[in-house]
């Protein structure tokens, strides 16, 4: 029996790590959520204030996601693992 609702199909649950904490947190977002919006929510949950939070993959080397794209456009799927990273520049 099909029990998955349309809304559930539109959502993904991802695990987000912060280099501030040994423990990850889980977040459920719509696939069409902008990376920047997801990053801000995750950063706030880990206690970040200010800056330009972004998300990157946990692979090595990590791939920093485009803050202007949606999660699905950045190939983030249910069960993906991500890390918080600031996206500001130097100098």
């Amino acid at each position: 029996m099909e029990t998955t609702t349309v809304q559930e199909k539109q959502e993904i649950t991802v695990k987000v790590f912060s280099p501030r904490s040994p423990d990850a947190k889980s977040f459920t977002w719509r696939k069409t959520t902008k990376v920047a919006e997801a990053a801000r929510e995750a950063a706030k949950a880990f206690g970040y204030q200010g800056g330009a939070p972004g998300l990157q993959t946990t692979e090595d080397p990590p791939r920093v996601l485009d803050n202007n794209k949606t999660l699905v456009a950045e190939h983030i799927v249910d069960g993906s693992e991500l890390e918080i990273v600031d996206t500001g520049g130097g100098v």
Partner: protein
Amino acid sequence: MIPHQDTVLIVEDELRGTRRWTDRHRLPLAWLPARLEVRVPLKQPSTNDAFFLRGIFSDYKAIAPVWTFSDPKWESNGGAFNFPQVTRPHHGSPMFIMGGGGPVICVPFNRLAYAAHGGPHSVTDWGGPSNWLNAGPSYVQAVTIGDMLTAIYRDFCHTHGRMGPQ
């Protein structure tokens, strides 16, 4: 002046999360509490060359830590040969630059980016290294060791070769 043992406690508390990050990226972080020093050897993805990132945390967090690339023996702050060369910045301006006093990781969370320590940023600019937690809000922000390493590694992964000859 922050007592040595207090700094050790602050750094070791932050290293709990930092070590999970370095483990995920298979980076061999070493912490030398007697020297208040963190050492992280890095492999440049595009060349597989070795670089030696060093952080020194005296008086942390009253003032910004010292971040630089070292020589392979960890004996001195490195010259241009020890610094990675930015090819194309991916996040605003590059953080690895050649300053008037030599190569520098030019970010608000590096003591060496401030004029008082030979860097390009004056008191009227970023307010000095004791203002590092509030300095340069439009630049990369990192206020814990893990955040700093993540930011430096983010740009390091997009470098190619070395900033200068040996």
